[in-house]
């Protein structure tokens, strides 16, 4: 089995889908001739042509809106927002047209929106966001967030096969830093959570770039405690069963969010645990999240707000001792 980076895994999924299914169409700014801002589609035009790897005008609403049109006449468009932050320009089309269409009209919109997300490299307020919560809150849209190379490929295949609009949160920080064995060919990862590391005294629940942060934070054993790390992988649908199972066994929970704390995905997980996992709790549900600020540019400021290994470790220690 080949070892690929997270980014190569995404490319691999896109390439395999373009080969396997005539209906698949990639749309985005600078993805064709230039190969993409992050080189995800580097070389694609040579194999698939400029029609199927489309360089669009600079128009996020246009990209999402036309993709919806293409989707309802039998294509499988995979749109890219160059940075997830720019989805706000296409918010209306995604939430009001795509998200609500099946409920209202019984018309499926098989659309994928790739959203390169997250900070940690001085991208500043408009190139560092994690906007998944906006779309978890919008009925009719699924949201997935891989943290490993294998899941990056499998979830993207599954998203493209899904007949509904899917936001695919690919984390920029993981593009080249995460490597792993990735099966070749087309395969699907289900929209469920995954136990990244089993444990019994406490569970850290995370997704995306916060999964490697969590694994590192608990890697030195934390004074002999047995800590579980649960990788959510799918935010809509949220794997309630897996979350509640971890909570029942571990009874102590730390949730890590790189997104701004208020109403982040982790807030929904915390609410779920309070409502359905109450009987299993041996301590308050703790959240480690970015405070409600635009992501700052200068490194000391940015590092101070994004959840790092030390903050997560400290939160685990305190809760274990409670």
């Amino acid at each position, binding site marked *: 089995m080949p070892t690929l980076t997270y980014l190569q895994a995404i490319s691999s999924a896109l390439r395999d889908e373009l080969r396997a299914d005539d209906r698949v169409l990639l749309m985005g700014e600078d993805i064709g001739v230039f190969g993409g801002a992050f080189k995800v589609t580097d070389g694609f035009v040579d194999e698939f042509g400029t*029609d199927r790897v489309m360089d669009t005008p600079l128009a996020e609403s246009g990209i999402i809106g036309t993709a919806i049109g293409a989707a309802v006449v039998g294509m499988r468009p995979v749109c890219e927002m160059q940075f997830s932050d720019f989805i706000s320009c296409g918010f209306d089309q995604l939430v009001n047209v795509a998200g609500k269409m099946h409920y209202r009209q019984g018309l499926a919109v098989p659309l994928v929106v790739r959203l390169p997300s997250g900070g940690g490299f001085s991208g500043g307020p408009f190139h560092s966001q994690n906007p998944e919560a906006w779309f978890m809150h919008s009925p009719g849209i699924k949201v997935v967030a891989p943290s490993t190379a294998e899941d990056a490929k499998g979830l993207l295949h599954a998203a493209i096969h899904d007949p509904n609009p899917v936001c695919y949160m690919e984390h920029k920080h993981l593009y080249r830093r995460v490597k792993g064995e990735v099966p070749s060919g087309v395969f699907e990862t289900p929209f469920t959570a995954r136990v990244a590391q089993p444990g019994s005294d406490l569970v850290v629940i995370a997704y995306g770039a916060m999964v490697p942060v969590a694994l590192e934070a608990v890697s030195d054993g934390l004074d002999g405690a047995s800590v579980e790390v649960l990788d959510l992988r799918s935010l809509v649908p949220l794997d309630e069963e897996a979350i509640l199972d971890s909570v029942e066994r571990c009874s102590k929970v730390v949730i890590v969010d790189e997104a701004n704390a208020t109403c982040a995905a982790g807030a929904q997980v915390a609410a779920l645990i309070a409502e359905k996992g109450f009987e299993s709790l041996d301590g308050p549900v703790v959240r480690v999240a970015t405070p409600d600020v635009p992501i700052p540019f200068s490194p000391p400021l940015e590092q101070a707000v994004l959840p790092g290994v030390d903050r997560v470790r400290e939160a685990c220690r305190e809760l274990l001792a409670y």
Partner: protein
Amino acid sequence: MATHMAEPAAGGADTAIEHLTIEDRIWLLRAMLLMRGLEERAMSLYRQGRVPGSFYDGYGQEAVSAGAAFAMGPKDRLCILHRDLAAHLIRGVTPARILSQYMGRAGGITRGRDGNVHFGDRKLGCVGMVSMLPDMMLVATGMAMAFKLRGEKRCAMTWFGDGSTSRGDFHEAMNWAGVQKLPVVFVLENNQYAYSTPLDKQFAVDPVERAAAYGFVGVTVDGNDVEAMFEAGRAARERALAGDGPTLIEAVTMRMHGHAAHDDMKYVPKEQVEEWRKRDPIERQEARLRSAGVDIDALRASIKAEIDAAAEEALAGPMPDPATAVDGVFCEGEAEPLGDGHAPWSGFASNGGDV
């Protein structure tokens, strides 16, 4: 800067005659009569408290949708807006289902999930509108994009109003369609008002001129002449299928009722309303057909009977089951694309229906 007011361009109807049989011309009148009759009946039901929410109609601008939609083939796709009921009727949506839809019944096209004209029968190739009106322009552009990518001889048609031309999606759609030279027909229903906002508060340039700015043809048409509207739609479709790109059709008309049933349009000068009443699209088509020997009274009677039967059927239908309120947010099976609609124009029959 002069703004383009209510002066429709002449012509269009003469060329139309070449392409319309007498049956076609009667069909056009039927579609308008059915639209107006249904909307009047629905308004009455609204005043009886049987139609929840708001009620919108296209009184006085029936020709815009009837004419343009009549030029669309079975494989073409439509994004229909709230004053374009005739387009739904031409595609094959039945009057009973429309009245059920207005009354929020289980038998409506959206089964109670969306109201009034926010519907589109996907099996007949119609996409249901959203309230952010010009959004649909991008969807139509996207459909046209797919047709072009696949080399198919089909087009997409989308309706929108003068107000929509101020929003970003109008510009993104026009630009995209122009840059990619897509087979899409943009039908701008310039009915003089966006709710209470008149044209001179909406744009500084007549929007038909914007077509040139985006690289394609824009034409102004008498929106109250159903045969001229048909001809404009037919020509635009021909252009699209020939690979010559989009067309913007500015249909000049007048919204004769308020923005919605709850709006008495006091902001419209009485003289303007009176002037446009003389140009009523139904009266004009009736006059044409009378001089061609058609029995208008019989036609009207059959329309009324059809509407009465539809109302009876709709009123007998059940309300939706509350237990189903949270169903259907996601598609659980295969994604089915839009289906084909009816296309009663004789021009399609003579071409084997596959134009």
